[in-house]
């Protein structure tokens, strides 16, 4: 394989992990925009997606399509329950206490998953075979195409939801100004619940489509969640294209770094990029700076 082919291969696999980061990152951004909370439990919904799919498919012998649907349902329910039990009862909690509560939630969810499904690493079958497709010198696994397709569909749907439905518009109103949204009759608490439901559903989709490529276990959520968070920060906490590009850039740079320099430092590369971006453009790559009002 010559260097050009190698590069094409790295970029391709980078784009597919980047798409996963983008999905997770958009989930972060949706909750953050609706509530101001950084949900450190986001990665656990990613884990739940993959693990629940494995459970329904391998242990209960449910057909894969149904297993995927059930797993998404389980994770979404988990997100809703988490919001109702741990987030909604809080009034006037400081941001730092909210961080601790979501961290506690992530430990709790991870612990329950470990008790239910054990500490083993599990693999899921790919959605449509393992026959690689040649594409401009790089080999593409069908699963990569699934990842691109699902990400595209989810992002487009969420874009349509936020710009064309009444609920979507109401959620955007909450992110601009919660009090004003409440004054015009929007049920802010319900919108917060929606944001948790949507972002846990998105996270679990990400976990499901990546599981056939990377395997899954009860503790995959931490790193994936943090990378998704990186994507959201690069994208300036936008719940749209900014974060998608953030995820793709992160995935590609990480894959190139791992391929050309050192695979051991692969995870470090993502965080070095993150620090550089925070130091140089803390408002994200694609957003203009805002001055703080006192």
């Amino acid at each position, binding site marked *: 394989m010559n260097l050009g082919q190698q590069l094409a291969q790295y970029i391709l696999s980078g784009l597919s992990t980047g798409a996963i980061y983008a999905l997770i990152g958009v989930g972060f951004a949706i909750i953050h925009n609706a509530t101001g909370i950084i949900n450190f439990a986001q990665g656990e919904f990613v884990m739940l997606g993959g693990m629940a799919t494995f459970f329904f498919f391998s242990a209960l012998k449910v057909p894969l399509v149904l297993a995927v649907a059930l797993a998404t349902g389980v994770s979404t329910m988990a997100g809703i329950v988490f919001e109702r039990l741990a987030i909604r009862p809080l009034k006037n909690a400081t941001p730092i206490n909210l961080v601790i509560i979501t961290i506690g939630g992530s430990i*709790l969810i991870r612990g329950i998953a470990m008790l239910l499904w054990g500490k083993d690493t599990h693999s899921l079958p790919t959605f449509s075979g393992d026959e690689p497709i040649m594409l401009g010198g790089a080999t593409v696994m069908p699963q990569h195409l699934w990842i691109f397709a699902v990400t595209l569909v989810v992002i487009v749907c969420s874009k349509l939801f936020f710009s064309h439905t009444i609920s979507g518009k109401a959620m955007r109103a909450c992110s601009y100004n919660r009090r004003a949204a409440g004054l015009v009759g929007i049920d802010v608490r319900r919108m917060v619940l929606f944001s948790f439901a949507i972002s846990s559903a998105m996270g679990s989709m990400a976990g499901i489509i990546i599981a056939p490529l990377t395997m899954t276990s009860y503790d995959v959520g931490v790193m994936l969640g943090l990378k998704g968070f990186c994507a959201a920060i690069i994208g300036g906490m936008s719940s749209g294209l900014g974060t998608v590009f953030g995820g793709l850039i992160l995935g590609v740079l990480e894959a190139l770094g791992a391929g050309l320099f*050192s695979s051991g430092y692969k995870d470090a590369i993502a965080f070095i990029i993150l620090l550089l971006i925070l130091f140089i453009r803390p408002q994200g790559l694609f957003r203009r700076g805002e001055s703080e009002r006192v």
Partner: protein
Amino acid sequence: MKSLLRNEAVRFVLFSAMILALPALLAGGYLLNVFVFVGIHTLLAVALNLLLGYAGQISLGQAAFFGLGAYASGILTATYGQNPWGTMVAVALAVGLLAFLVGFPILKLKGHYLAMATLGFGIIVYIALNEAVDLTGGPSGLPGIPNLSLGSYVFDSDLKNYYLIWGVTLATILLSLNLVNSRIGRGLRAIHDSEVAARVMGIRVRLLKVQIFALSAVISSIAGSLYAHTMTFVSPTSFGFNFSVELVTMVIIGGLGSIYGSFLGAALLTLLPEMLRAFQDYDIVVYGFLLIAMTMFMPGGLVRGVPELARRLLARPQKGKADA
């Protein structure tokens, strides 16, 4: 009695006496070993509290400074045979300088961005500890670190290490109490409330934030060196993201902006896993649950929550009478 307790000096003497007398009660058992770790964790929690509780700046990468201190001490003494005491001081200064340098760009950030940047820094250090195998031994760890010694007196038992570590911790608590009650401490609290207002009052906000960040790194590095010499073995898992989170949890559960609260938080979170042993695999679930419950029902931490709870419990019977 109550007014006596309000006196800072009296409180410190009482606290020190309690700590120094504790080994007699524990009678050298397994709990004594646990309380050695309570000492190290208190040291780390106090350091983080200066930054988080007083200056209001979160750090999710505190374990990195702890790890750098432990590994640098370990490598220089075990591999290169340097004097442990000199190494401890030199390493602490070097880690402080590093924190000072990275502090300028990092502490410009606020809120979640600050949390994310410090977290990123912590993870980069953690990965480096794992990957620089020639130097650190990689994931399997670094063995053969010597115990500390003074002349022919070697700190090789739990009891000796207890007094060594708590000596350092008590000294640090005294220093921190002095610091937070000084002009600098008032400056830090001003920054916590409003950076702009603090700047208007003539506080050099950026410099002060970076200085307190560096100070907390120096203390954490010393804690790391002490940990390395006590354990005589270090491995990267002790210095990961989870431990950084645990430290933040100690400070918040103990009570932000309370030095003794940091001790309570450190003691609770160090003893808790030992008590949860009985739950076996369920311990992580119970731990997560307690974390959520305590933050929900005692948002001010143990230091404010326990007296509040006591007052409510005592007040309840009277309230019942009034209703009747």
